[in-house]
């Protein structure tokens, strides 16, 4: 197990180094997130819908769409020069490869979410200070699950001719449960509701994480081995 973690960290560090050098996915995802927030902000009729009512949905739709941009790159970099073959012929378990890619993707999506939050407060005039730990917590809980699924689908999609189109088609249906849960919890957090009202949704998010991280780790081998 320590070897798996050691190798996974090496793979994650490599992905982060590649991204920091090119900055392609991170910058694209951040610009995309900002654009989605702008569109939400200006498309809303303030007389019909208050910013507070729309804010949780807008936040999570922005996170979801921006994540898609970040996740698309996960295996695109492995396609260049057949680098994935280099990983697969090495004495590295498929689990270590999956966990490494998952950690790197969590770092990217987490960064996108962290940078998006201040923009969100700016556009929607919502104060997050009092509920920031809660929002960060639910963001972490929801993100782990859909990023795990996104990592698997990114590995599948990259072998197709239309990888960039395939990923949203495959991933969006699987994003629905964590997004609903996250929106529900965020709505209650912003409304100052007690924790007891959120527990059910938090359990759903935690269950989704456990089930899909385990499942994705187990099926990764079948996805990458031809």
């Amino acid at each position: 197990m320590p070897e798996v973690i050691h190798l996974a960290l090496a793979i994650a560090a490599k992905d982060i180094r590649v991204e920091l050098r090119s900055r392609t996915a991170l910058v694209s995802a951040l610009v995309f997130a900002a654009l989605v927030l702008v569109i939400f902000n200006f498309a809303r009729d303030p007389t019909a819908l208050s910013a507070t009512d729309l804010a949780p949905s807008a936040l999570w739709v922005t996170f979801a769409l921006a994540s898609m941009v970040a996740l698309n790159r996960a295996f695109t970099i492995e396609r260049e020069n057949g680098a994935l073959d280099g990983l697969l012929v090495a004495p590295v378990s498929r689990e270590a490869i999956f966990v490494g890619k998952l950690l790197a993707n969590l770092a990217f999506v987490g960064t996108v979410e962290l940078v998006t939050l201040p923009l969100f407060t700016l556009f929607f005039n919502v104060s997050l200070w009092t509920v920031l730990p809660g929002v960060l917590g639910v963001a972490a809980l929801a993100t782990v699950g859909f990023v795990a699924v996104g990592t698997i689908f990114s590995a599948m999609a990259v072998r197709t001719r239309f990888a960039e189109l395939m990923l949203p088609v495959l991933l969006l249906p699987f994003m629905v449960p964590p997004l609903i849960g996250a929106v529900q919890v965020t709505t209650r957090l912003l409304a100052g509701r007690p924790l007891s009202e959120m527990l059910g949704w938090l359990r759903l998010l935690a269950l989704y994480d456990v089930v899909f991280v385990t499942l994705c780790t187990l099926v990764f081998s079948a996805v990458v081995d031809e």
Partner: protein
Amino acid sequence: MPSHDGAALLEARGLQRSFGRVRILHGLDLSLRPGEALAIIGPNGAGKTTLLRLLAGLIRPSAGEVRILGQRLGRDVGSARHGLGVLLHQSLLYDDLTLLENLTFAARLYALDRPGAVAAAALEAAGLADRGGDLPRRLSRGLLQRAAIARAMLHSPRLLLLDEPFTGLDATAAARLRTDLQRRLAQGLGVVIVTHHLAEVWDLASRVAVLVGGRWAADEPRTGTLEAFLPRYQELIGA
């Protein structure tokens, strides 16, 4: 060629592979012992690259099995993979990492001690000591091939699978690779070389196998001269 005792480094039995309804390989057997260099040649579409990818464990056989260093090649045969070096058509290098970073990362995958030092030594051995800071996309085809070869041999594998290793190499680099392979063969390395250019590997090979339509048309010790073998090769491939 030197002879080495010991178990087969590579054994394949009844290897078949189909893509959809098209069968590419028809029940191939193959064995390679330490110190042997097997050159696999054949016309386009004979299944050479598919065979090499099967031997490397990159694709699964439809039937049959591959054993590397005595272990059946499955998804997590770490010790077998530690002894395997693979050179494919592509360089397996990341375009946004420098050559040194690429090889250091590869050294980490193979759990080598002091990966940075190992990577630097491999680059030096490949004549790329002054190119460690370069990105692969900025290199010429020949330099990229040298870097890919350095990556394949980084962990001193016991078995090398090489797909067209001399592609893009100039005369000096090709001679350096030939000398290096001969030295390693004398130490007990086993090499499978897939090539279209038999002249490049004729002196290196201890065996020559001809693959035609996914079947062995010949698998025999290399004897005589290339000039004497070529008419027979033309006959085997039906040209």
